[in-house]
């Protein structure tokens, strides 16, 4: 077991963030280079910067670039959402996938398509946001206020049960109605490939707003970690902080799920790695987790492209294979501590 890291001073942490940003750039380049057809880095850069006209350039600009951008955005969003969820619930297992927020978004979409028959991108995204918001709110209402020993596990089981229930309802809608099935088929396994481009202009600003809210919320999360009373005496508006947190998680997890389907474990692994690297201050954990989440999902997607030739593994499946052992390692700690 590693000892908890020493508190670091700001310059060291800033350097760390710069390092993580460099890692993200490397991961993005790797995602552009590697695939069923390997394209040299020089050609990739040429295609991006100088508008070269060749087969490889077309592959890069029309296939790999959108896929990389989607992976980057979704990974960043899920990493941020996971960090906030762990901070607010103080539960080390909190993750938008495991704790039902992604399932809530999926259920929202299924419900709207099933009941209203609507399929326009705007409605789908709004439904995903509403579902994610409802699930997050339910989680906060149920889970906060009782964080004693055991309640940690109770919250984990509550949340996974909620996720199972929402998934069951979603699949029942999909099986009862062909149109819903058509929309929901994409969602069965989370993936960043072949996503609908028309969503970008809608989803991008929403995710960005979520990121801004998440970063703004980070300081309040840190003081809330000392207990609601201490936080209040430090000038944090507890209710406001919670509401901002719910809004940020909803925007981040909802948009990521609306575009990619349910991808679990990014929001679990990224904050834990970030915490190991930066210490326990959420002002650093949240940005580090955002960067790490994006790198993680890009690497998972890239690995999935080459792991099982001739086919591909969806990023969601690679993430589960990477993330489940991390989850098991967390549960094996000698004492399960609230964060």
């Amino acid at each position, binding site marked *: 077991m590693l000892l908890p890291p020493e508190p670091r001073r700001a310059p060291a942490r800033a350097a760390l963030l710069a390092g993580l940003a460099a890692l993200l750039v490397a991961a993005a380049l790797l995602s552009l280079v590697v695939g069923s057809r390997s394209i040299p880095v020089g050609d990739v850069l040429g295609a991006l910067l100088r508008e070269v006209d060749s087969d490889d350039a077309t592959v890069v600009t029309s296939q790999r670039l959108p896929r990389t951008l989607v992976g980057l955005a979704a990974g960043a969003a899920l990493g941020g959402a996971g960090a906030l969820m762990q901070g607010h619930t103080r539960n080390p*297992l909190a993750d938008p996938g*495991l704790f039902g927020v992604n399932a809530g978004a999926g259920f929202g979409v299924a419900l709207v398509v099933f009941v209203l028959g609507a399929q326009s991108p705007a409605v789908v995204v709004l439904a995903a946001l509403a579902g994610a918001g409802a699930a997050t709110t339910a989680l906060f209402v*149920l889970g906060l*206020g*009782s964080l*004693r020993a*055991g*309640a*940690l*596990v*109770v919250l*984990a*089981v*509550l949340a*996974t*049960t*909620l996720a*199972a*229930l929402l998934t*069951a*309802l979603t*699949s*029942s809608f999909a*099986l*009862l*109605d062909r149109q819903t099935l058509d929309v929901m088929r994409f969602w*069965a*396994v989370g993936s960043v490939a072949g996503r609908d481009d028309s969503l970008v202009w809608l989803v991008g600003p929403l995710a960005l707003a979520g990121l801004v809210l998440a970063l703004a919320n980070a300081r309040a999360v840190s003081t809330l970690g000392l207990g609601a009373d201490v936080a209040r005496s430090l000038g944090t508006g507890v209710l406001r902080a919670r509401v901002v947190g719910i809004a940020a998680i909803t925007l981040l997890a909802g948009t990521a799920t609306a575009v990619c389907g349910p991808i*679990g*474990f990014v929001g679990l692994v990224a904050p834990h790695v970030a915490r190991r690297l930066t210490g326990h201050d959420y002002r650093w954990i949240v940005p580090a987790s955002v960067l790490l989440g994006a790198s993680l999902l890009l690497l998972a997607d890239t690995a999935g492209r080459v792991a*099982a030739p001739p*086919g591909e*593994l*969806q990023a*969601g*499946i690679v993430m*589960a*294979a990477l*993330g*489940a*052992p991390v*989850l*098991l390692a967390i*549960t*094996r700690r*000698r004492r*399960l501590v609230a964060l």
Partner: protein
Amino acid sequence: MSTGTSTGTGLRIGPVGLRVRRRAAAATAAVLAAVVAVVVTALLIAVLALAPERELAALAGEGSRIEALVVDRRLTRALAAVLVGAALGCSGALSQTITRNPIASPDVLGVTAGASAAAVLVTVTPLGAGAAAGVGGSALLGVAALAGGVAATALVLVLSWRGGFDGYRLVLVGIGVNALALAAVAWLLTRAELEDAAVATRWMTGSLDGVRAAALVPLAVVAVPAALLCAVLADRLGALRLGREVALSLGTRPARTELQALVLTVALASVATAVAGPVGFVAFVAPQAAMRLFRTAGPPPLAGAALGALLVLVADTVAQWLPAALPVGIITSVIGAPYLLSLMIRSLGRTRA
């Protein structure tokens, strides 16, 4: 241990001691009557309704070929529902008893998901796909599911061992193993490119669609001796509920009882999964509901089995009536998950107070 002491009427047959209590007896009779009633309803009222006298004739072997086929299918399906439900209910009661934790049912601990993953692995390999039909195929599937269930259980036990078992850590590790196994199922299904969506839904959510009589053989082979063994174990499990030290001082060997109950749990849950896939929440709901209905001190294995049978049977019958037939696992999850949530919210309320 002596039976027939101060309360109730005692009865003893070999190693089985039975204390007849009025409430439990009445509840058992009611549940079994309900099971029979639902089986009859399921046979009579279905998409293709047969007149009762034709149904009887077909059961007696005097109907036309189509009637015989229809009745045969329905009877197999109803029987499958009863056996799967009973196996899951019983296995849930056993695991809840040995962990002393109502949450720790085989589906939360990842046993059913592990069994499901192994069964899918066999199904998508050419060897397994070739032997899919017939008793041989179902036996292969059963053995694979059993191996998967054992592997998942072993993984959970090894990973949660910390100089002793903590009920909470067991559940958390179970959640992790469950997630891993479900991801494996999803991956195997995407690789297999199965044309048949029904096969995929069976292994994702649990379904009794197109179940064959041959598939029930391994289940019956495990379930019937398991039920007898539960009756033998009942006393010792009762002692175990009071804690390991008390169980020891009552003259039982707790470690041995736990091991026997664990073997039964894994075997029952795995074989049931081989037939119907991971039917959600039955193993959690049935024993907990039985405990309240029968007013027993802990989750009762045999009463849990009876209630589990009723639950799966009703869920499957309801599922067939819906405009598009839903897999039974969705119905049981929709019933079971809110029940689990409500129980837990109530317990949260208690700890807060």
